[in-house]
């Protein structure tokens, strides 16, 4: 399989006011702190982690929507962090994003047809006279009736709006789609419809999908590989089944244990992971997870954890094998 996207040791920093007298000394937030991942063409990678761990920032940095402080984003072998206009233009033509809140992502004053046609016009995907036909095709592709082109987002349900969001992403015939929590705002009975649609489209169009979510159950269903993020770093990455069956990183293990399963025989974890992720403003020394980790050793607070690679799997922890 050919590598479509490769992210090498990516850093994203934001500065905020707040420190010192009158808040004049800027604080630096390390939102993404040395993240690396690869995504092959046609593959689906799930990016999971708790809120504030930097998964959305990482995704936006990949699509050149956030400034990057250090590191590389290679799309098709070309480094996008150089910011050359021709490269970015190509990135825009070949990647698309689906957002969490389907109502907020669509312009409420535009008709659905206009929303889709605008993308086609800007990217010059089809000749002007073909646009209405292509819009109808796109709507049909995501399971909506073509008449909906005349409607405005306000008169559609959440699931329908999300389908429009997907149709808009597909309009440019992308090779990579980044979906940021794209089912989190939908009811469970509707979530399945959207996930199945993404599965079918991936098969049909050979799409690569970066699927950001906090819902591990969905990842297990949809993704080939999973990357687990904690405080700006990827702590574990590997094929979904292997990671779920035998997590290597203590944080991944805690996340999997916390999945609310509907099996009534499975009780809540007796000792749920204590504490909460610390603020990215004050990263702990050494391993970022060390203050909450049950298996931490004294050295964990001193040095960054070593990286281990075993077959298709990678993790960053003092323990090369899980200690449990």
């Amino acid at each position, binding site marked *: 399989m050919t590598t479509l996207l490769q992210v090498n040791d990516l850093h994203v920093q934001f500065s905020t006011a707040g420190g010192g007298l009158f808040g004049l000394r800027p604080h630096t937030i390390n939102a993404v702190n040395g993240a690396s991942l690869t995504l092959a063409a046609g593959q689906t990678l799930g990016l999971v982690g*708790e*809120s504030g761990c930097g998964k959305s920032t990482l995704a936006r940095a990949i699509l050149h929507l956030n400034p990057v402080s250090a590191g590389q984003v290679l799309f098709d072998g070309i480094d996008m962090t150089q910011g050359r206009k021709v490269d970015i233009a190509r990135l825009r033509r070949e990647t698309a994003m689906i957002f969490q809140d389907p109502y907020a992502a669509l312009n409420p004053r535009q008709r659905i047809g206009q929303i889709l046609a605008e993308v086609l016009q800007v990217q010059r995907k089809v000749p002007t006279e073909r646009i209405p036909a292509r819009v109808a095709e796109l709507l049909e592709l995501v399971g909506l009736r073509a008449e909906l082109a005349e409607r405005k987002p306000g008169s559609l*349900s959440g*699931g329908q709006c999300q389908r429009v969001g997907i149709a808009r992403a597909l309009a440019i015939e992308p090779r990579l789609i980044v979906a940021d929590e794209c089912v989190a705002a939908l*009811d*469970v*009975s*509707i*979530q*399945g*419809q959207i*996930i*199945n649609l993404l*599965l079918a489209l991936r098969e049909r169009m050979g799409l690569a999908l970066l699927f950001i979510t*906090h*819902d*591990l*159950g*969905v990842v*297990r*269903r949809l993704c080939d590989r999973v990357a687990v993020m904690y405080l700006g770093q990827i702590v574990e990455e590997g094929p979904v089944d292997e990671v779920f069956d035998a997590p290597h990183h203590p944080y991944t293990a*805690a*996340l999997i*244990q*916390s*999945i*609310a*399963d*509907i*099996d*009534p025989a*499975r*009780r*809540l*974890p007796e000792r*749920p*992971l*204590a504490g*909460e*992720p610390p603020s990215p403003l004050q990263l702990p020394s050494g391993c970022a997870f060390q203050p909450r980790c049950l298996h931490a050793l004294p050295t964990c607070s001193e040095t960054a954890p070593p990286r281990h690679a075993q077959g298709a799997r990678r993790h960053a922890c003092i323990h090369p094998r899980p200690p449990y």
Partner: protein
Amino acid sequence: MSTPLLQVRELSVIARNDRREVTLVERLSFDLGQGEILGLVGESGSGKTLACRALMRLLPSPNLRIEGKSVHLAGHDLLQLDEAGMRRLRGRELGMIFQNPSSHLDPLMRIGEQIAEGIRLHQGASRREARAEAIDVLRQVGIPDPKSRVDNYPHEFSGGMRQRAMIAVALGCNPKVLIADEPTTALDVTVQAQILRLLLELRDRRGLSMILISHDLGVVAQTCDSIAVMYAGRLCEHGGKHELLAHPRHPYSAGLLACHPAQQPQARLMNSIAGQPPLLDALPSGCRFEPRCAQALPLCREQLPELHESGPGHRLACHTPLLAGGPS
């Protein structure tokens, strides 16, 4: 669980706008025993939150009206109480916690004062007593170092700690029933497990009864004793957790269970329920689930199924229930 602590009979919430009336919650009846945790599940707009707000008489709009036969709690019929009587009861007998703690805590008031306010009002405690009590409650909900944290403002707490603080505000008044409206939806999964564990501990320690509103069957399965499923404003199935999860009899309950992503992880395609819930001002004349139901008969289109006792401790509103032994 002998006589139920809370007995709700035919509670309805009706919205009035432009001279049209829309019933948002229709004739909801259920019992809640001492120390029982009832999970109220359903999709957004199914009326679960509104029903619980009606119990507290805290409806979000003056256009909403409560109707019903009776709501008995601790020797009172809440529907007969006047506003002053309700105010005495609210908090002391019936506490509520919400999904988003940041919008339900006063940002300009110290955490300790928010807890102490209720204690002073309901128990007539002095300021000093109430403060000591507030520190004790904060300790009970697992806030580390409560003596110094009691003077913090909400913004100095993290998300999980704010939810704990809101639970402390509710617990300060020592309620018999706690209504928890999606208490963990806004929290991360690892923190969600902590808060659910805390709620279970409080039940065991204080004998607190709870109504846990959630859209997540996983959360409900791990915490509740019984489950009530709502669809389009009506209760469609209510029974013990183990039975309902193992053998759902209403096609909607079965569909919701099948939609959970953790079900059958070996299959790639996810289950979903075709279509979407009906609009409450354009309801089908028969069963409200009929347009999405795979089991529907002609009868379902004509006649609304009534909730009835379908077995010991199990109630159901369906003309074509699934067999008790498994899916048909």
